């Protein structure tokens, strides 16, 4: 019997029992939809995080306190990084063109009767060039501000707006932790970084920050939260990383374990890639399990169906169906269920991915590979899980089958 006839026959059988066929497909539909959605979301997250780090520029390095291992053990970073470290890097590492130590804390910011909570970031003039934060109006913190510990503040545009509304903030006085600061500049809008709004920030001189806002909390000097560094160019990033690491090891008198980490944009991208890749694999694995369960569902229903259709199978054999004919018929039924379920699941998955990319910043997209794998796997599952019931059907003794009335 040719395949086309078998397919026609299978379609006839499956449409004769629409509710059951639909329910049988449901497992595969859900499995397939979740594979495609999950992989789409996972890859979207990866692309989002990567693009954020790429926007930092290729020659940026970060020094953060604690080794990557020690930071895994505790939420509170060790306070080992100091302003003196930053100065040493700036003066002693030849491949570095700018060093911006940062000390930050969340504080209430008050202007006349308005109050809001914002990130207060103590830093040096290099910050604006290293991290490419531009001033829209007025000026950024100067070396003089840092030397003298002036009470000057540059505001992110969102913070300026929430404090001052439409009026001009320049020259006005705001209060941070009950200390008066004069607004010297407004920054250009920068957008969010990994979900943090970078425009809701007040920039003050690092010295003012450590003397008057946070106090000196590190036993080694003026503590900084982390140091952003610009290498001279993209090619000297590796050298800069090496030199900074050596310098800090000397300064911190380190024998075995580093108490700091120097990370390049490339490292960060790699970490993001690893994390997001693991996330994608995990999501795909969960979705794959549901696809597998869907396959078992098909096998289950098919086994029941073989038992129910014992007489039909016996009759078919009596009028000339060989074991192979019966085998092929049941396998085709299973494949049709799985492939159709896979197709419907794919459509739902594509819908899910589109929805996610519409309502979230994740640029989720349908990966053709995921679609192909999911559809291929679900058809394969139909074949795989269809074989057992189909063999059972094919092996049925026609006499027993016909007598089982």
């Amino acid at each position, binding site marked *: *019997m*040719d395949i086309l*006839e078998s397919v026609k*026959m299978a379609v*006839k*059988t499956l449409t*004769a029992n629409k509710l059951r066929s639909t329910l049988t497909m449901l497992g595969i539909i859900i499995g397939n939809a979740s594979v495609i959605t999950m992989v789409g979301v996972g890859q979207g997250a990866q692309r989002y995080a990567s693009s954020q780090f790429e926007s930092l520029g290729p020659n940026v390095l970060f020094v953060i306190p604690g080794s990557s291992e020690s930071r895994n053990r505790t939420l509170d970073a060790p306070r080992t990084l100091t302003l003196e470290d930053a100065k040493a890097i700036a003066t002693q590492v030849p491949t570095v063109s700018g060093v911006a130590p940062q000390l930050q804390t969340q504080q209430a910011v008050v202007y006349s009767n308005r109050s809001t909570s914002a990130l207060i970031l103590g830093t040096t003039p290099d910050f604006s060039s290293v991290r490419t934060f531009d001033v829209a109006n007025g000026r950024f913190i100067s070396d003089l501000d840092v030397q003298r510990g002036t009470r000057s503040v540059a505001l992110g545009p969102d913070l300026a707006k929430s404090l001052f509304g439409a009026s001009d903030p320049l020259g006005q006085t705001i209060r941070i932790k009950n200390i008066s600061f004069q607004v010297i500049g407004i920054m250009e809008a920068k957008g969010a970084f990994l979900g943090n709004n970078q425009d809701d920030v007040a920039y003050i001189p690092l010295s003012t920050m450590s003397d008057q806002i946070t106090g000196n909390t590190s036993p080694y000097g003026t503590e900084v939260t982390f140091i952003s560094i610009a290498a001279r160019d993209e090619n000297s990033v590796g050298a800069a990383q090496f030199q900074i690491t050596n310098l800090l090891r000397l300064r911190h008198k380190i024998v075995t374990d580093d108490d700091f980490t120097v990370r390049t944009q490339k490292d960060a991208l790699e970490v993001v890639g690893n994390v997001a890749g693991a996330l994608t694999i995990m999501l795909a694995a969960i979705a794959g399990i549901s696809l597998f369960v869907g396959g078992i569902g098909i096998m289950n229903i098919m086994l029941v169906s073989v038992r129910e259709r014992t*007489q*039909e199978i*016996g*009759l*078919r*054999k*009596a*009028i*000339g*169906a*060989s*074991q*192979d*004919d019966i085998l092929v018929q049941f396998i085709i039924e299973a494949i049709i269920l799985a492939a159709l379920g896979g197709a419907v699941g794919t459509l739902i998955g594509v819908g899910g991915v589109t929805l996610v990319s519409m309502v979230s910043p994740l640029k989720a997209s349908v990966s053709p590979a995921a679609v192909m794998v999911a559809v291929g796997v679900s058809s394969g599952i139909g074949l795989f899980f269809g074989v057992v019931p189909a063999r059972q059907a094919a092996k049925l003794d*026609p*006499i027993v089958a*016909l007598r089982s*009335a």
Partner: protein
Amino acid sequence: MKTIIRFDHVSKVYGSENTEVRALSDVNLTVEAGEYCAIMGPSGSGKSTAMNVIGCLDRPTSGSYYLDGVDVAQLNDQELAHIRNRKIGFVFQQFHLLPQLSAMENVMLPMVYAGIPLPQRQQRATEALTRVGLANRLNNRPNQLSGGQQQRVAIARAIVNQPVLLLADEPTGALDSHTTQEVMAIFAELNASGITVVMVTHESEVARLTRRVVWFRDGQVIHPNLSPTNLAQVTVAAV
């Protein structure tokens, strides 16, 4: 005359040594082309087993069975399926029509397995259904037909591949006496047109309408050629 069925010392044994059941014991039997014969006997006499062997649904344990000159015992599953498809037409007590298919589609089924193209299938199915008087019921599903009509569809399905042998297993067992007459009339007419008919039945009124009765008991043929007309006396004597 051509021999359609020849049993040559056929035995069929079920079970293993200790629980051995000899369903057929050294049976010799011959049915010529064009015969119309009934297989009778009490339950457990081996008539159903004989039927299964004749229908190539089962193989003999020993001995040879020649169907239309071919030794069936030597054939594999594929070849047996082919024989069932081309040489034998089955009619069952429970009709065994597929409920999701129309009368027409049910009758076309054996031709699907024979690989006959669709236009020819439709034409031959229509002819077969017309022959059993169902030309106006082509597109009805089995549940839209009476029992007698369903059995006529089953007969049309059995003859559509022009078999050498029409094999009926208690074909009137599920029918009332009126439809029994109708169905038996069709068998008689088919036999008159040259088809060899063998049916298993336990109803002597049905067997009386055939032309030869083969009587089984304890796995053996004890009367290979009874006349259906004096069946009543023999039945009493044989049992």
